[in-house]
């Protein structure tokens, strides 16, 4: 099975990846092969089978809503590519 270029572009956009034309072709081919392989799961009848999202069935792990010491700002910004006035700086979000 193959995936079309349009499909590859759509998925790349969702994944926030910028792919070169060559990468798009490569992934279309490789993903096509992988998807063909995983298609074998359709051989199995899974009607009425509950999905397993976690091997350990934990539910609603909560803690008390107690205030804890926050990280100091200088630590939080330690690896920031760009920062100003104690905040992360990014390109404009709004026009």
């Amino acid at each position, binding site marked *: 099975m193959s*995936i079309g270029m349009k*499909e*590859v572009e*759509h*998925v*790349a956009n*969702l*994944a*926030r*990846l*910028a*792919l070169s034309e060559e*990468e798009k072709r490569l*992934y279309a081919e*490789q*993903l096509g*092969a*992988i*998807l063909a*392989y*995983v298609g*074998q*799961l*359709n051989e*199995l009848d*899974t009607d009425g*089978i*509950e*999905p*397993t*999202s*976690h*091997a*350990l069935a*934990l539910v609603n*792990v909560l*803690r008390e809503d107690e205030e804890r010491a926050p*990280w100091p700002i200088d*630590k*939080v910004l*330690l*690896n*920031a*590519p*760009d920062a100003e006035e104690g905040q*992360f700086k*990014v*390109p*404009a*979000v709004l026009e």
Partner: protein
Amino acid sequence: MSLFDLRLQEIHNRFARKELSVSELVACSFDRIRQVEEKVRAFLTLDEEQARARAAELDKQLSDGGPRGLLFGLPGGIKDNIVTEGLRTTCASKFLANYEPIYNATVVERLNSAQSVTIGKLNMDEFAMGGSNENSAFHPTYNPWNTEYVPGGSSGGSAAAVAAGEVYFALGSDTGGSIRQPAAYCGVVGLKPTYGLVSRFGLVAFASSLDQIGPLTKSVEDAAYVLQAIAGHDPLDSTSARVDIPDYISALSGDVKGLRIGVPKEYVGEGVAPQVREAVFAALRELERLGAEWEEISLPHTRYAVATYYLVASSEASSNLARFDGVRYGVRADNPDNLIDLYRKSRSEGFGSEVKRRIMLGTYALSSGYYDAYYLKAQKVRTLIKRDFDKAFEKFDVIVGPTTPTTAFKIGEQVNDPLTMYLNDILTIPVNLAGIPAISVPCGLVDGLPVGLQIIGKAFDETTVLRVAHAFEQHTEHHKLRPQL
């Protein structure tokens, strides 16, 4: 003979008798690294100054007397997807090439409490995605048994460093076999604990429902010690289990009389190299000599495990890796047109091709219109795979087979064939899907390359898994073999 060939207890006895200092033991690590690291390339970052300072502190504590931690003075390496405060942590990705964590992973805190000495950060496949360590953005790691061969992955650096005698123990992580497969390829012990036994806080997430941290060591006893130090509930990890932690070390009784072993026919059939199969059957005969019994069983959904895993793991990865956006840490592209462009360019610059491939696969499998057919379907097959194990464990104490279908392959042999690479994990993957524990122990050599025996146990039954592995190990000579570097 290296100091690292001494049993842990013997090292601790020598510390107590003042015949050995921590500084000497740590120096042993760095000497060995200087000797062999050029050929093995297991490390991404060495922390020599800090390690020697820590050794000096521990030596002072030795002379002052007082209680010592469980792993006192032992030099350890840590896979580079486990965060270490103030020590560069890269996940072997360009994206995090200069990332300096501001906190320690819980397992690192626990190693520090147990008083081991961190030597450095170990190479891996980028973001733990791979089975050969060739996906490291920086450089490959080489198998100490034959440096033309891969050490396995994604904890390739961890396995190689232990096999090469550069560290006494290492921590790795295992999502589809990433501790056990390199352990098998490198002739060392590798344990993946039950999901939830060891905290994932500070482990850079790949697939949250599958990832577990575990030890790589040269003996089962050492693995038991390291597990003892790191296992246990962590309030900082909401997926960590609230279970009592048994004494793993005293469980190593050497006794397997009456043990019931199941050997899945799917694990020893076509696709497994004949000599690997032979080594496994020889191991089973050894276990029989020790009083265990084995029988062929079937885990009928085994053949669907790789497909299930690649959908589940890639989907979870696509979500987990969304955080790498260039805003708060990591690579940030120059001159983006806008915010979305910043994300796109930073991620594309920072991620390698295997990572991008899995993000693409996972995003596709989760996207509208495909979610039911792919991700949800895989989750249901996961239930069937888990049920196969549940059923087998009604009659058997452990399940045994080879860890990998073949011994290590040559560097470069599979890089252009992702699907073949994925199939190397066919024997390890089902264990992660079911969330149960498994260990790989060396059980022989084929053409100079190690073979691993995999012992799989019930959830939270590490004591049985370790006991069986230890008994087998102590009655054979495989664990005494060392690569000639």
